[in-house]
């Protein structure tokens, strides 16, 4: 699956970070292949920003180690290999847009002025405007231009789309996808916008309570799960059939008399074939149960809602 000669874009082993006695991240093992678009998802306070800042070299790990493209964050090599967009999109408010791009040009050996300028121009932002006078969305655009102009191999983006309007979000997403496809740029972006992820990312890293809960190739993860929908069994509290193997259930919700459950498909049984329940999932071959491949959003939501998974899943 993985080419061992190519350093992983982001690799962490037993990574932990403590803030005043509270662990924002603990015992994280992460291995993201190079050149992939990874969605970093998780509830607020899950440790997404902490992980990104550790990768950007802005925080020191309390425990464990982390490498970006084989280099320790903060080293010259790592700084050149990565570009970072902080969640609050910090910029010098008294600088003009041109000055801000100049900062990127002056502080980086590799710099793509044309790319950075085109991104700013696409938002109709005059280069002479003061950053402080820009709207939140335009500020994000300038911050992104600064990150992209760096021509890094790995973009670490902390909620890059959060304060963009839908049109801009679509455009920026397209631009990021283009960078990934055309230049092989790897992207790790944290986001709460699950619905749009399906078309964007080919890799998923789900954090919850400072730990990795789900990690892997999107396609493989989807294949490894089945979304079951059926009529609730009135006798069981969770509505699932009595004989059903509960250990495969990630999360089940009952809406009225209908149960929707995301279950793990045991290896070898193949993707959800549409066979109702099927022997593979342990459910009775009941025509009233429909099994289908979940959408990425449904998959992530179920895992986000799952109370306490007993183990970390890795499909890749």
């Amino acid at each position: 699956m993985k080419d061992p000669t190519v350093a992983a874009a982001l690799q962490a082993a037993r990574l932990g970070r403590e803030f005043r006695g509270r662990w924002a991240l603990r015992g994280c093992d992460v291995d993201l292949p190079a050149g992939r678009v990874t969605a970093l998802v998780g509830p607020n306070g899950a440790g997404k920003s902490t992980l990104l800042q550790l990768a950007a070299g802005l925080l020191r790990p309390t425990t464990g180690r982390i490498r970006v493209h084989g280099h320790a964050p903060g080293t010259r090599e790592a700084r050149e290999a990565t570009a970072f967009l902080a969640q609050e999109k910090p910029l010098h408010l008294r600088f003009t847009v041109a000055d801000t791009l100049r900062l990127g040009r002056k502080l980086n050996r590799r710099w793509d002025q044309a790319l950075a300028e085109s991104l700013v121009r696409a938002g109709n932002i005059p280069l002479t405007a003061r950053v402080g006078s820009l709207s939140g969305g335009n500020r994000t655009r300038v911050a992104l231009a600064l990150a992209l102009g760096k021509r890094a191999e790995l973009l670490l983006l902390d909620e890059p789309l959060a304060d963009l309007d839908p049109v801009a979000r679509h455009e920026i997403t397209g631009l990021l996808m283009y960078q990934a496809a055309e230049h092989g740029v790897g992207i790790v972006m944290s986001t709460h916008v699950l619905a749009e992820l399906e078309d964007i990312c080919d890799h998923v890293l789900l954090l919850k309570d400072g730990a990795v809960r789900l990690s892997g190739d999107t396609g493989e993860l989807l294949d490894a799960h089945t979304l079951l929908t059926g009529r609730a069994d009135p006798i069981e509290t969770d509505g699932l059939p009595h004989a059903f193997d509960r250990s495969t259930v990630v999360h089940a919700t009952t809406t009225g008399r209908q149960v929707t459950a995301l279950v793990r498909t045991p290896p070898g049984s193949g993707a959800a074939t549409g066979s109702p329940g099927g022997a593979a999932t342990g459910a009775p071959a009941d025509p009233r149960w429909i099994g289908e491949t979940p959408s990425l959003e449904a998959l992530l939501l179920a895992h986000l809602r799952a109370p306490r998974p007993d183990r970390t899943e890795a499909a890749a």
Partner: protein
Amino acid sequence: MTGALWLAWRQQRLQIVIGAVLLLAVTAWVVHMRSEMMTLIDAYGFVPCKGWNGDCGNLGTYLILDGSTGSIRALGLLGFALPALIGVFWGAPLLGREIESGTAKLALTQGIGARSWFAARFGLAALCTVAASTVIAALVAWWWAPVSNTLYGLYWHDVAIYNATGPASVACALLGLTTGTAAGLLVRRVLPAMAVTAVALGTVFVFTTYFRRGWVAPETRVTPGTTPKELIGSAWSKGYGYLTPDGREHSIADFCQTSGAPLKKCMAEHGFVARYHKVYPSSDFWVFQWIETVLYLGAVAALIALILFVLRRPAGNTAAARPTDSGTTAATAATAGV
């Protein structure tokens, strides 16, 4: 590094220009005021009478000193306050504002390392600090020299002179900047860092003011019996007292606070045979100055070392980041990267 310097200049150019304009205005004012003073001195044939050595109460002396002492003191107090002003308004925001506003994250994730980022910003600010404090120190010395240590005027050990001129005043300004910078880095917010800086520099001032005279032995002038004491001149008095034949000193604070015949009687009663007067001659100005210069520069070096330690790369820390090193994890948590 050139990029870091560009950023440092781009962010500090406004204060540098404003500072330079203010400095220029102060210089012009001093040049004007001093030339007026010199005109008076020439007109009245002023002969400075150093210290409390006699009657200098002629009209010329009065006019010259009355016209200039207040202004020299004002300039001296500016020089005295300069380290605190620089520390609070330039040092504390130097890194503190960057950290507070998050722009430190922007700078530190570009191609430059944290230490060159700091070196460029701090280096530029330090250069301006040394230049500004040197100019002020020179102006104070230049203006004050013709009327130095004169009765009713300013003495070398006055705060407005001693703290505003000489190498120690330049070193102290540098210490102000460094203290503010370190406070901004450690406190991570500008306003609290400003307060910490002000308190720290105030403590340094109180410390040096109270302990300065403990670092240098004063000159002891002994006069036998009740023969008149040597006039103090421009020296700085540390205390009077009496000597018993065995050479022991008895401070005037405890004995014979009187003069004339009662003094003679009192001295005889206690068996005092001589009087002593401990003074620092005005040449000790340089001794005090160099001692404090060394102390301040030592503190500057220590603070810079602390800043560089906090700004060390995360990479240098991977060995210490193993979970088994519980001792160092506490330290790394305390010195969180910026």
